[in-house]
């Protein structure tokens, strides 16, 4: 796929910027629930995968596979729900990700 064809395909998949704006605002609001309701989710759904869509937890399951199947049953569009594992023993993350660039600085 050349650059022009790639960009045309991206724009086709992106669709109307107004819809992107609306969808991403909704997704941001759903993701914000992880911040504002984090402690409640921890109490209600320990060691479970949860899915948040349109302001509510619409599914919670022990495995990600079952959760994904449940979302399909519920008619939630793929890639539009916030999916997260609620870990009641939060792990400390120390992340660094060194990719293809090489250097010694």
């Amino acid at each position, binding site marked *: 796929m050349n650059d022009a064809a790639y960009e045309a395909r991206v724009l086709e*998949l*992106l669709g109307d910027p107004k819809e*992107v704006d609306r969808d991403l605002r909704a997704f941001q609001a759903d993701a914000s629930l992880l911040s504002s309701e984090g402690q409640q989710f921890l109490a209600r759904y320990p060691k479970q995968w949860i899915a948040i869509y349109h302001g509510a937890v619409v599914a919670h399951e022990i495995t990600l596979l079952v959760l994904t199947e449940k979302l399909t049953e519920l008619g939630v569009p*793929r*890639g539009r729900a916030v999916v997260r*594992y609620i870990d009641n023993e939060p792990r400390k993350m120390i*992340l660094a990700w060194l*990719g293809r660039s090489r250097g010694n600085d």
Partner: protein
Amino acid sequence: MLTGRFGETTGRPYLEGRVIVPRFGIDADVSFLVDTGADTSLLSSTDAFDMGIDYSLLTGETESVGTAGVATNFTEPASLVFIDPGNYVYVYHVDLEIASPNPDLMYIPSLLGREVIDRWRMVYDRPKSTLSFTVRSADLTLRI
């Protein structure tokens, strides 16, 4: 301006965006952990699974070094999309790293790396719960 958030329980900095993978016709929304230690952006195996990426179709296997050692990923042309609500949609064309499935790393979030962050001015103010980004450049800018 783009606006991120800090996780309540972890304090981690996140920014929501959309991932478009043209070869597979996939577009999906993702919470990215903003990671200035990441050379490039990385799609977690959880997010890849959630959006329906078929690993058997991935090529471009690469190795990357993280704090936990060497990891195997796949590299796929993709675009990352962010919004300045009500104003602009910004699009970045990247070579996205896609993490190989690994049960021990299922809880690692997707990472927003420096190939995108380097094109923004970032305000990281945890005491005031402010995480914001001013866009300096983008591959595509669309008016909303």
